[in-house]
């Protein structure tokens, strides 16, 4: 597979990727280091139990003083997906529609490459960026073993993988919207709206009864909102998230074949 476009886009996004990764790594280390101070805080669990709707808004379900609960409530249910989505949705909007608006897309679209190959390279560049962020956070969480966190390595790896897939799903959906419309702002706006509504659906489904049956429609449910940090991700989680990614990839390729490039 040609790799020039992957190298190019990674080099163009190097600074922002570095910023996201360093910021998230520092935040994770702080969260990990703070855990011993809250490990025996039953009052925090009581607070969550008393106001489960507000807690659910932040993706927190169940006790927060356990290792899994602490990581879920402070990292995997909210901040990591948020940063991951900022990274992938931002790239998804810039990769085709944004570069077309900048006038640089024609530079690569006139190279001897099929349009489908260009999309595949860009999807790979997105997955690599998401992988760097997820791996950095996972590495910092593993450090948590020295701070009383007892989460297993397998759980950390599996939640990192589903978070990565979550980012890629929304990133590709954004890229597909960009390829259909040629508009970076429309892609960014629609991709963000999809992600926010999906997040609310998955997090509030545990406390709003009429939302409960439709939680399966949210990629968050299959990624971070079904206790994956404690139980580990299931095969079905990977399958659904991968299927969404493939559908996004197909939609992007189809739309990009039809896009009038400037």
């Amino acid at each position, binding site marked *: 597979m*040609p790799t*020039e*476009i992957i190298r*190019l886009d990674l*080099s*163009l996004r190097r600074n922002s990727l570095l910023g996201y990764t360093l910021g998230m790594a520092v935040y994770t280390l702080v969260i990990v280091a703070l855990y011993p101070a809250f490990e025996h805080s039953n009052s925090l669990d009581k607070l969550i139990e008393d106001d489960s709707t507000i807690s659910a808004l932040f993706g927190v379900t169940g006790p927060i003083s356990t290792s899994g609960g602490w990581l879920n409530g402070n990292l995997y249910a909210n901040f990591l997906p948020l940063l991951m989505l900022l990274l992938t949705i931002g790239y998804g909007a810039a990769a085709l529609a944004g570069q077309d608006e*900048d*006038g*640089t897309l*024609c*530079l*690569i*679209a*006139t*190279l*001897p*490459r*099929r349009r489908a190959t260009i999309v595949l390279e860009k999807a790979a560049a997105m997955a690599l960026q998401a992988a760097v962020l997820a791996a950095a956070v996972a590495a910092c969480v593993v450090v948590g073993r020295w701070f009383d966190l007892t989460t297993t390595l397998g759980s950390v790896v599996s939640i990192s993988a589903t978070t990565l897939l979550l980012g890629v799903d929304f990133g590709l959906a954004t890229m597909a919207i960009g390829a259909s419309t040629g508009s970076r702002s429309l892609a960014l706006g629609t991709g963000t709206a999809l992600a926010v509504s999906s997040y609310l659906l998955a997090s509030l489904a545990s406390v709003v009864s009429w939302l409960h049956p439709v939680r399966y429609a949210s990629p968050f449910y299959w990624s971070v909102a079904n206790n994956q940090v404690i139980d580990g991700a299931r095969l079905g989680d990977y399958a659904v998230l991968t299927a969404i990614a493939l559908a996004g990839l197909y939609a992007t390729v189809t739309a990009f074949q*039809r896009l*009038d*490039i*400037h």
Partner: protein
Amino acid sequence: MSTAAIETSSLSKTYRATRAVVDLFLRVEPGQVFGYLGPNGAGKTTTIRMLLGLQRPSTGRAAVLGLDAQVDSVEIHRRIGYLPGELALYPRLCGRQHIDLFARARGVRDRSFALQLCERFAVVLDRPARELSKGNRQKLGLVAAFMHRPELLILDEPTSGLDPLMQDEFERLVRETVADGRTVFLSSHELDEVQRLADRVAIIRSGRLVASDTVERLRRNTPLRVEARFRRPVDPTSFAKLAGVSVTARDGDGITLQVAGPLAPVLTEIASHDPLDVLSRHADLDELFLELYRDPPPEATHAD
């Protein structure tokens, strides 16, 4: 008949209500410089984008190097060099990184020709593109278009932003390219540039082809410009009533006529007014172009 470097048949592109290119028939023979002229917004860039497969025609078809522009765009891209009209580079990458990128992507292993071009055009290689002037960015674009010695070069406003020295260098490069048997399709709104380089020109206005011929034949077919001076002022109506004659200027005892019809009746009329001096020549090509540019055809709309 040899395979045309470029051939379009009934090529049209419509954006919503705007007809950017209308029913375009073009044929560019291999081994020549073809000038594609038109005012801003005439449809030149849209034509090029369809040739490159970047945009799909609304109707008609385009073939480049004998290949279908839509179906075989990968093979076409392998064999052409392209300079966009509004060249945008990656702001943070320096000149050298741009050259490396395009060389790697096109599988150019021997970069000696690319470096030679960089030297000829005095390309700034070590500064980020965002710090480069328009001319320096353009030179980088020219190197990227020529560096893999493509069979066909499609250049949209190639000398935009270049100083006269670099324009000369560009013209030398184009002549060398054509002498090598390769083809150059040159889109421009600058008549002088095209006139100096092109074997054939096509003129497009409001998306429609209004003329296509060799530069020499276009020049020969322009109307005659006749300037006459007389001993005393003459009545211009005696000239204006002649077939194909219009009076374009009158200055004291002098008169300037544009003659699109036979010359003999004009000379007879001049002789009857006791002339002092008569000068006859074909109108400048510029005048023809200006005339073609000026009058919009019916239904005409825009756009590049």
